[in-house]
């Protein structure tokens, strides 16, 4: 697409994918406003996490998603699949997919806890709620593993663009908000959360 950069919706939210294109157990990487974000469908629930490990900056969303592992003794391992964690591919730090919080802290306090991975607000909208934005090219839809919407360069990997694919009102879309989930801000000694200009300020 050549022309105007993608606009955010008036409420600062971005449509990033069709819901059906992120099947259960899969993950899609998208770029919104220059920020790479992993969109996960875990047990039918959508989650979005900034693709940056708060430990050393690795591409966090390249890591595995695992359940909670506990043990009552040597050789006895229990897997709780109802709690899911993203595991950083560099150092194995685990982040709760629901809260973004690093789950582990050393028991003796010798090791500092790591900062919270940054969760991103996410919701699923019916296409009928997005018709206006999709039809005027303000929002774009990507598909498949590795497909990326790059709002900054306005280039899209993968075949889907709003102009080429008419909106089906029955479709569901995944909408991402760059506003951080307020209850999950960083630790008191961490840097202040970044602020994002609203769509009206950009205009």
């Amino acid at each position: 697409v050549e022309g105007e950069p993608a606009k955010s919706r008036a409420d600062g939210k971005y449509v990033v994918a069709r819901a059906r294109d992120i099947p259960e157990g899969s993950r899609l990487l998208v770029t919104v406003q220059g920020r790479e974000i992993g969109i996960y469908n875990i047990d039918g629930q959508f989650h979005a996490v900034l693709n940056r490990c708060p430990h050393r900056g690795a591409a966090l969303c390249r890591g595995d998603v695992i359940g909670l592992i506990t043990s009552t003794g040597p050789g006895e391992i229990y897997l709780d699949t109802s709690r899911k964690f993203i595991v950083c591919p560099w150092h194995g730090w685990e982040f709760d997919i629901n809260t973004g919080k690093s789950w582990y802290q050393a028991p003796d306090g010798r090791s500092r806890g790591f900062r919270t991975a940054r969760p991103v607000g996410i919701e699923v909208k019916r296409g009928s709620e997005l018709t206006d934005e999709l039809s005027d090219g303000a929002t774009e839809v990507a598909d498949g593993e590795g497909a990326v919407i790059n709002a900054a360069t306005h280039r899209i990997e993968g075949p889907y663009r709003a102009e080429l694919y008419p909106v089906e009102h029955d479709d569901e879309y995944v909408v991402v908000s760059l506003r951080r989930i307020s209850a999950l801000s960083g630790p008191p000694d961490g840097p202040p959360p970044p602020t994002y200009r609203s769509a009206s300020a950009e205009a």
Partner: protein
Amino acid sequence: LRASILLPTSANPAGMVDEIERVAADSRFVQASFPVRSGILYGKRLFWPVYEALARNGLVAGIHWGGSNYGLAPTPSGWPSRYIEEYVAEVQVYESQLMSLVAEGTFQRIPDLRVTMMDIGFTWVPMWLWDMDRNWKGMRREVPWLTTYPFEIVREHFRFTVAPLDADSRDELAELIKWLGSDELLLFGSDYPHTHDDDLSVLLGAVSDDARPRLMAANARDWYRLSAAAE
């Protein structure tokens, strides 16, 4: 004078248990001897009945330089050509045994087990455990029964005899002992009748006045539960 029980080879854990039970009532035995080159890592659970027998009888597992009758090499890549190579390489077998005993959860299963690493010095211990600690943080879900740092487990369950004394600088030894986190992990040992030609005064100069008698006697007395009255 106190002694170690000589056990059957590690191919025969049941025989090891039998021998411990046979002689443990003699209080002159305070330890059972395990050659460091065992063929099967000592953390494996086939040895747990042996450690349970030790713990039951208040005995220490003493891991000492040398191999069993399997003809096991001191390196994972086979036999070196010269004694100097074997002498230097042996530490990696101790490292592997320590790692195995910790990682397999031996001390979670047998909390009363005590292990003495003999005849390998102690200068290797801090670096090896920094590595284990660091990797435990990232890979601990492989060993979820370990609920604290490997180094913490080692401080509680291991002691190290001081010979051979690899370093010959008082300052360097003082630094190493600081890294160990406690001079109470060190037991005087000479490997008699073998000799390593260590200058013990360098080591004694590296620890505090308080620590010297501990290192030379009290640490071992505590570890082997030799009450003053028994002397």
